[in-house]
């Protein structure tokens, strides 16, 4: 199991039910990469993590957290 969890799905729905494709285009990655990250199958780079935060208008730790912190 990955050590990092994410809130991407929740944040997408809180931002006007943003689709994975919309998010992908906004941060400049493929939709499949959004699927992999959301599903915890791929951990993004620090730069990409910041881009997620910027896309949702929140901090990086509001999007990604260490698993022990989110429990």
């Amino acid at each position, binding site marked *: 199991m990955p050590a990092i969890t994410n809130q991407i799905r929740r944040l997408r729905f809180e931002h006007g039910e943003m689709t994975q494709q919309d998010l992908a285009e906004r941060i400049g990655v493929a939709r*499949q990469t959004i699927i*992999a990250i959301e599903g915890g199958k791929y951990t993004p780079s620090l730069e990409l993590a910041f881009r997620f935060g910027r896309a949702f208008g929140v901090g990086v730790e509001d999007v990604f957290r260490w698993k022990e912190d989110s429990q």
Partner: protein
Amino acid sequence: MPPLYKEGIYWLVLLALVAAAYLVLMIFIGPIRAMGAFGLFGLAGLQPLLYRKHGKAVVWDERDTLINYRAIIAGYGVLWLVFTLVPMSVWAFVYSFEGHSMISVQILPNLVMGGFIVIATTRAVAIVVQYRLQNPGKGE
């Protein structure tokens, strides 16, 4: 479907096509002349067409870079195992008993081509496996 994933599938399909062509030709014209079927590998040169951009969709990102990097490492790892460990130890050891301590100049070009095939095939398999592990059930 990411272009890199398509590239992996494309190579594996091409490999199957070449193998089938070789086997069919071998029946009619013999194993040496049938090696002309390997010329079909030239169709691998069409792979860049898989990276055409459609609309705003991103065709390559950091995950593709990482997957490709790991796949290349796997390809070269297998190449060293197959073309260094086997020919330089097992093969040379066995054939030296028959007075052929060197690899024939007729075989060498085929070995080089075989090396490229091993790298490309291992890389293609590694690409497909990684995408399937990261997006199980979606095949991409």
